[in-house]
């Protein structure tokens, strides 16, 4: 025996390695990398024009939200989504990994299964979303240390909540066979609903947006804090976001006990 492992090194070192590793794997196809990054930024830009003309037509205000507020939500959504798929690019594929038996590989490694699984893939178009989010925020929001700090903090919370929502619903695959479409829908609904001025929702839809589809936790409440800083509301939203993350991690862990594996041929891309 020549080398003994240094046990207990954190998952962060592995995530850092995955980041460099996946970036280099994506760079193997430079043309595709550039097309995906710029294509995504261009695709997102089309919506700015749509919102600009909409606000022009209706007099610049939708229930207390102006054009810049909606652009803040777009910048936040793009940043959070981009960071989610760059750092945790396997999230949209959790169901597939479960039902195809590919989870075996992660269960055989001495690392916590969920972060290991999520971080092991990078979706390269996410870089386009991140670039778009940063440019949009710079162009439409006040340039102060506080605004940037809040924007970055809410982007990290958005990253965590979006990853958690998708993980939560994908984990149902352990119990019901295949929840891929359902989880995809839940993730898309979270992003879609957070992009609209939250003040247009009332009653039951508002309750759903604070719980099952927690769009309010990553859009409506953050913009309120961003416009008028409230430390209590800030603390509440951070705790609520962490509760969503804990629920997702808990359900995934519970699901592992029901994991049935499989024998499909698999390669790691």
């Amino acid at each position, binding site marked *: *025996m*020549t*080398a*003994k*492992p*240094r*046990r*207990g*090194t954190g998952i962060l*070192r*592995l995530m850092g*390695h*995955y980041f460099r*590793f996946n970036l*280099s*794997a994506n760079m*193997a*196809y430079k043309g595709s990398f550039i097309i995906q990054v710029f294509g995504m930024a261009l695709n997102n830009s089309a919506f700015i024009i749509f919102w600009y003309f909409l606000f022009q037509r209706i007099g610049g205000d939708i229930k207390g939200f102006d054009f810049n507020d909606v652009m803040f939500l777009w910048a936040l959504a793009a940043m959070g989504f981009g960071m989610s798929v760059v750092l945790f690019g396997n999230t949209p594929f959790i169901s597939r990994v479960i039902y195809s*038996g*590919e*989870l*075996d*590989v992660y*269960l*055989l*490694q*001495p*690392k*916590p299964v969920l972060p*290991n699984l999520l971080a092991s893939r990078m979706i390269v178009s996410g870089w386009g979303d991140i670039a778009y989010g940063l440019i949009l925020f710079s162009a439409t929001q006040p340039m102060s240390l506080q605004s940037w700090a809040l924007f970055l903090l809410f982007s990290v919370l958005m990253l965590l909540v979006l990853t958690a929502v998708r993980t939560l619903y994908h984990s149902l695959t352990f119990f019901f*066979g295949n929840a891929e479409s359902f989880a995809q829908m839940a993730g898309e609904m979270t992003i879609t609903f957070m992009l609209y001025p939250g003040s247009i929702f009332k009653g039951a839809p508002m309750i759903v947006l604070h719980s099952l589809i927690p769009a309010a936790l990553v859009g409506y409440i953050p913009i309120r804090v961003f416009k008028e800083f409230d430390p209590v509301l800030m603390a509440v939203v951070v705790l609520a976001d962490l509760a969503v993350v804990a629920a997702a991690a808990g359900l995934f862990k519970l699901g*592992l*006990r029901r*994991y*049935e*594996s499989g*024998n*499909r*041929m*698999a*390669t*790691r*891309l």
Partner: protein
Amino acid sequence: MAPAVTVKGLSKHFRTKVKQAGVAASVRGIFRPGYKEIDAVAGIDFQIEAGEILAFIGPNGAGKSTTIKLITGILYPDAGEIDVLGLNPHRQRRELAYRIGTVFGQKSQLWFHLPPIDSFHLLGTIYDLSRTQTQHRIDFLTEVFELSEFMDQPVRKLSLGQRIRCEMAGSLIHEPEILFLDEPSIGLDVVVKQRIRDLIKRINEERGVTIFLTSHDAGDIEKICRRAMVINHGAIVWDGTVNEMKYSLLNQRILAVRMDGPAEVRTPGARVLKRKDHSMKIQIDLDTTRTETVIAELMKQSSIEDITISATPMEEVITHIYESEHGS
């Protein structure tokens, strides 16, 4: 020395959805789904000593992969106890992962678009090795598995044999005490198969690694393993040495002879399997007669030019176990 693996009363069953053919049955299935219970592993017991090379064989669906997945901590058992290197695989999964290695022929742990060296460095991080330790191990494994020629080529460009050698090297990066190999020689040509077998034997002999091998290839079992365990319908139906399996279980010999003239075999218990000119292949049932009796009968009729006596081919022994009462 404590056993490397101890399994007692291990059981695992799966509940699978069943559906009749056709659209109507699919619609009915939404409201009244039907299920079937499958006992993948039905109360098995066994021990594996440290340093052993064990062949774990059985027909498709017999419970081999499920057993490996239970032992390695991938699946939770429904009942029974598992002890691997003093650890409980599903309660101490991460601790155990540092001490075992796995090669699943159907599942790769190498990145398809990147060269093996990159995957090895990543595996080093996964197993908490320092960069220096990882490099040291990569140098060692590159030499043992002769990987230097293609270490810098993307995995997608490697031949199957090269990829399997890389998979094995990757599974040994953290110096595991037990190596689980599930169909490592599947799809390989005879030359590469032999090379993989030599490597497995070398790891066992030089590093003392316990080998748990599943394979449908009789050659793997015959040439590498000292002990074989057969599983069928989730139960262990045979456990003994490979020699016992080959020479005792199917108590037969194959006699290949070339005579210088015509000859007939009439001894009860001897059966001509193949005949061409004055050459014959005869199966002798040792429970009924003796090999020398058949040879004597042939020599009375003509001179023997060439003769070979061999045990029944391993494939036939294994088929016999699967099909006989042992396997039912």
